[in-house]
């Protein structure tokens, strides 16, 4: 099992702050497709991701038990 963590407006889009889902063996890019197609996340291309609180690239592979965070950079100031 894996835990997904959504930040800021992604939380509203996904309808939850966390989501339990089994995505072990998939890449971050594949997971991004899943969350945008099945969980309504928009503009996922520019969202930063982290696996277990460490910055993750699109081709990083998710392991069993990993927690993946989705952090959208914002521009307000």
């Amino acid at each position, binding site marked *: 099992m894996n835990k997904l963590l959504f930040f*800021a*407006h992604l939380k509203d889009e996904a309808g939850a702050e966390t989501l339990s889902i089994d995505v072990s063996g998939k890449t971050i890019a594949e997971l991004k497709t899943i969350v945008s197609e099945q969980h309504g996340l928009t503009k996922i*291309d520019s969202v930063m991701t982290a696996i277990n609180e460490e*910055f993750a690239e699109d081709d990083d592979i998710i392991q069993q038990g990993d927690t993946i965070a989705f*952090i*959208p*950079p914002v*521009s*307000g*100031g």
Partner: protein
Amino acid sequence: MNERYSRQTLFPAIGEEGQKKIRKKHVLIIGAGALGSGNAEVMTRAGIGKLTIVDRDYVEESNLQRQQLYTEEDVFEKMPKAAVAEKRLRAINSETDIAAVITDATPDRLEELVQTVDLIIDSTDNFETRMAINDISQKYQIPWIYGACVGSYGMSLTIIPGMTPCLHCLLKKIPIQGMTCDTGGIIAPAVQMVIAHQTAEALKILVEDWDAIRTTFTSFDLWGNQYTNIKIAKAKDDGCLSCGEARTYPFLQNENLMKTTVLCGRDTVQVRPPAKQQLDLARLSEQMQASGYQIKGNPYLISVEMKPQRIVVFNDGRALIHGTKDLSQAKAIYNRLLG
């Protein structure tokens, strides 16, 4: 050392030595909105040697809820933020050399502005300028601190050339402007939290306490009770066009420059002439009044009612067209006014 900074020098990581270093440093703040006014006040009170603050906008009523340097009178006078900030900051600390620049922080302007600068604090509201700051930082080896917020959510990252990844390493695709600011609003505590992160990092950099630099990407949601730190050391990309071996500084290249920009979260387009101009605002004001327009103005800008739009023209030829998000309409209105 002076009594004024005694509580700051009592803090062991700063001390008398740190204060001497702070005193010699020049900090550049890009943006004098919510983050800019807060960051500037902290830096000025801390006793930095010189502060340059750059902003393209003027004070509006909706700013007062969170932009701590401005008052109702500044709204009434439609004063440029940088000019007001300069006045207030000087009143706070006469020992700091304060310079205000009323301009759009384009790559060309940034190149001029960073020449004697030790640190850049990002207080802008758009990624176009941030990516230009990021390239400038790498080109001139000047640290910079990213900060941004919307709603109750905020984030910060410290970028030290040669030591940390750059913002371009982390953001392969530049987030589209207005992703959330149109809908999210902003609460003052989120602004203050970002300022706290940026200025703490700024003090570490100014006293050269490199081991204390935060090496994570911080983000938080004050309403949602989230706080997270992402380790980013491994994100450093040797192929990065901004900080890698074959760097080209893509965000400093002129063809990447826009001449019209929709301002984030506002029904406003900024129009920027290809070259800087020196307008005769008094004359323009007379002409407009003669044409039957309602004009308000001060030495820095004039505001023209052209219902349903309102146009604010600055003396460098730049204009803000309020009441539209349509770039070509904005250009058309600009041309109607300024030829």
